[in-house]
Every structure is written in C-alpha cells, then in structure tokens.
C-alpha cells in the first residue's frame, strides 16, 4: 500500500473505537504471553473477555443489532466471571492464592524475546489477513483491521501455548484463542443468529471441561503443572 493511500480520513468514532478495542485485546494477549504468574494471566484473560463484550455492545449500537446485547451479557457472565473463577479454583486448589508449582519459570524464552517473537507472528497474521481485503457491511474499514488483529491474536495465542511449558498457560492460551475467534466472528459476521453465537460460546465450556480434567489429572499425578514431566514414559 502506498503512502498516499494510507494517508486518509480517519475512520469514524465507532470504527475507531472498535479497532482500538481490538488492538487492546491484542495487547492483552501479549500481556499473557509475557506474564510469569498464572494468577495474572487469568486476570488478563478476564479483562480481554470483558473487552470483547464491550466490543459486542459497540457493534450492536453501531449496526443496530439488538441480539448482540444479549450475547454481550451472556459472554460477559461466562468468560469474565465463570471461566476465570473455575480456572482460579483449579489452579489455586484449597490453599487459596498460593501459586501451584510448575507455572512460574515455565517460559522457554525470556519475556523480551517472547514479545519480539510475538511481534513477528502478529505481523505474519496481520498482513496475511490484510491481503485478503475483506470488507464488511456498511463499507467500513472495521472488518479489515479488526479481522487482521484477530488473526494476529490467534497466532500469538498459539505462540503462548508453544513457548510455555505448563498446563495452566496452555489452557489460558487456548481460551484466549477462542476470544480471538469470537472477535473475528463479531466483526465479520455480526448478523449471525443468536443461537449460533451461543453455540460457539458453549464450545468454550467443552474446552474448559477438557482442560480442567487435564489440569486435575496432571496435578494429581505429577504434583506440578509443568509439562516437562510428560516427556518421559512411565510404566
């Protein structure tokens, strides 16, 4: 894209706000990538989920889609309150706020390197999706940018699951991957029937159950959440 076409009128306030929210969600994803403690990661995940509810409200107001308000409420209840609560219970156990062994220090890269690697991944996702040139309803630019940000978020979430060697971070990476997919769905197909959107949300519940089982079983067997214990076979 040439400089001349990049210099253009600013997007409208709604679009700007929607894009800014998407960008902040990507930043929170990076926060999860570099955060050492699972507790803080859960907090960031809750913040990210809250933002996607806010985005749903913004889009609902902008495009006049009342069922998105219901979706925003449902998604907030589930992802801002429900999932973090379950995760905290699973990680904290009975001891309360104490950190489970195996989470802190599970990074394979130093935080600064991880962020730089994340930037490379994000750039790849961003420009791949940007090249598709998808335009949404109302001829706005929201889908192109926010969709590309969603793609970047997915890749960074994958990166998070790859560079961390503990089950908790991998679970959080997977859940935030779902947030990225919700973001993409919201901006591209916001007019989807409510029942379908809700069905996507309940997919997340399945993932929570599976990861909950994984965390529980792994913790019971190895007394830690680190996946390095899984590299050896045991009879």
């Amino acid at each position: 894209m040439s400089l001349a076409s990049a210099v253009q009128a600013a997007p409208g306030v709604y679009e700007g706000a929607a894009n800014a929210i998407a960008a902040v969600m990507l930043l929170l994803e990076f926060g999860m990538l570099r955060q050492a403690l699972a507790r803080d990661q859960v907090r960031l995940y809750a913040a990210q989920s809250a933002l996607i509810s806010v985005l749903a409200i913004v889009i609902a107001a902008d495009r006049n889609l009342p069922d998105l308000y219901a979706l925003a409420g449902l998604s907030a209840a589930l992802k801002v309150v429900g999932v973090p609560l379950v995760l905290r219970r699973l990680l904290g156990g009975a001891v309360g706020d104490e950190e489970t062994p195996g989470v802190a220090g599970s990074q394979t890269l130093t935080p600064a390197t991880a962020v730089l690697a994340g930037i490379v991944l994000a750039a790849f996702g961003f420009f791949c999706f940007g090249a598709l040139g998808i335009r949404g309803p109302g001829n706005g630019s929201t889908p192109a940018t926010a969709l590309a940000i969603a793609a970047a978020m997915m890749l960074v979430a994958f990166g998070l699951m790859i560079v961390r060697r503990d089950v908790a971070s991998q679970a959080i990476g997977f859940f935030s991957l779902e947030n990225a997919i919700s973001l993409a769905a919201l901006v591209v197909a916001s007019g989807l029937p409510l029942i379908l959107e809700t069905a996507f949300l309940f997919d997340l519940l399945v993932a929570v159950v599976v990861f909950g089982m994984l965390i529980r079983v792994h913790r019971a067997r190895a007394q830690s959440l680190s996946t390095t214990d899984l590299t050896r076979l045991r009879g």
Partner: protein
Amino acid sequence: MSVALPIPLIQLLQVLTVAVGAPAVTGVIAKVEARLQGRRGPRLLQPYYDLAKLFRKEALAPEGASWFFLAAPVIAVAAYLTVPLLIPVLTSYPLPLGYMGDILGGGFLLSLASFVVATAALETGSPYAQLGSSRAKTFSAITEPVVLFVVFTVALLTGTDLPYALAATVRSNAGQITRPAHLLASAALFMVILHETGRIPVETHTGTSEFGMIEEARAFEHSGPYFALLKWGSQLKQLILFTILSDVFLAPWGLAASQRIGAVALAIVALLAKATAVGCVVAVIDNSFAKLRLFKITEFVAGAFLLAVLGVFTLYLGGG
C-alpha cells in the same frame, strides 16, 4: 488585549517559556510526589533556588579532563533550547523557524545533547560517571527503534513528519483521537518519555544508590555552574518531551491561533498546566510502581516497541 505581538517575539517566547518554566514543572512534580508519600515536600520554587545556588559556586574539573568536559553542559543546554523552535509550544500555526527541522531533527538535537553529556562523563575517568554514560547509551540505542516507529506512525497519519502537521491533524476531528494508531503511538511515546526523563520504572529520580543510576550518574563530576547547566538541561528536556506529548499528540488545544497578546499569554498558562498534568501522572506512576531491575528494562522497552509497531500495522490496513 488586542495588541498583536510580532512573530519573532512569539518565537522567542516559545524558548523563554520552556527555559523559565522547566524548573517550575520539576518543582510541581517533586511536590506532588512528596504529598502522595505523606510528606510536605520542597517548595515549588526549590529548583530555582537550587540552580541559583549552584550558579554562584566555584567550578572544578577533574585532572586530565579536556575543554570538552566544560563545553559539554553548554552545548547540551544550547541543543535543548533549540528544540522549542521546532515544536508547537505556544502557537497552533507554524512559526518561520518551525520548518527548520522535523521530528527527526528535534530527535537529533536531543540525542546530540545526551551524546555530549555522555562523552564529557567519559572524560572524567570516574567509574560511576562512566557506568552511567555507558548504560545511558546502551538503553537509548534500544529505545531508538521505538521512536522511529512513532515517527513512522506520524508520517502515515499526516504524510509529513512535521510536529505542527500532526497537531493540526489531531485537532481536525474526534475520529482522529480514537483511531488506534494515534493512541498506540502516544502510549509508546509516553513510555519512551518515562525512560528518557529517568523516571520509575526505569530509574529512580531521587535515588542515591549509584548502582541503579543511568542518566543521573553522568553528572557526578561536574560542579558549580556546569552542574547547574546539566540539571537545568535535564529539566528542559523533561518539559520539551512533555510539550511534545501534550501539544503534538494528546491535547493540542489551548494553543494561540493568532498573534494577539491575550491568546499568547493564555497559551503560556495552558502549556504549563498541561505539562503539570502530565507531571502529576508521572508522579503517580513514580509512587505506584517499583523500579525495574537493570536487565528488565529491555522488557519495558519491548513493551513500548510492541505498541509502536502495532500502531504502524493498524495504519497499514487503513483502519488505524
């Protein structure tokens, strides 16, 4: 109140406002910081008294130091006083010398000042001053990419890299303020400013432990008027950076749109108020975070870099 000031006088006033106002802003920050910690704090005018005291003292130079050691503070202050000519300090319309240099030109002047101070510190042979200048150069090398990406964002937003053009673009409509590229670039610039002014989480401003010092340690061997110039220089740099943040990026309002004396006087007050507001935010950050360990500063800078890069990314797809 309808007396029109001549343009050269307004241009001179830009420099004078920064030169005279800088210690006051530092005084306000110190006061706010002390209040937040439950202390009464120094007087607001304390930085002026400090400078006046130092200007009256005798100057000594370490044995073996060349003329450059004494010239460096003067060059640094001269560079700092040139920058206010290039940026919108009081007026929303560009002044004649405003196009003498762009954002990069201003950046070069700021790095020239920091370079001569670091070189003078190296001349002394004092281990702490050398430690400080070596660290300052290392970390300014890694913040440089962040500044560049902020400049790229400005260039993509306005098609130029002139500070006046960006301020005018931000003023033009509300959509410009909420666009993510602008917000991300402003946040990245704010992080760079925290780093450049030696604030928490990068450096303790009032610390006395040499091992944690970066910029502060460079002035150790200077004394008397030369030390005063260095102190004044860092206050000038702080106010210049705050001015760039508030008058170019965050709040380019309250600038004089005409040459009338009332408008210009109002702009002086507005500038100092805005700089004080930024200073209060900095003081709150100073009180709510711990200093990062030296090797964690790269993480802080990586965060700022991320913001600036994302700003450019979002612009490229046209939605920023």
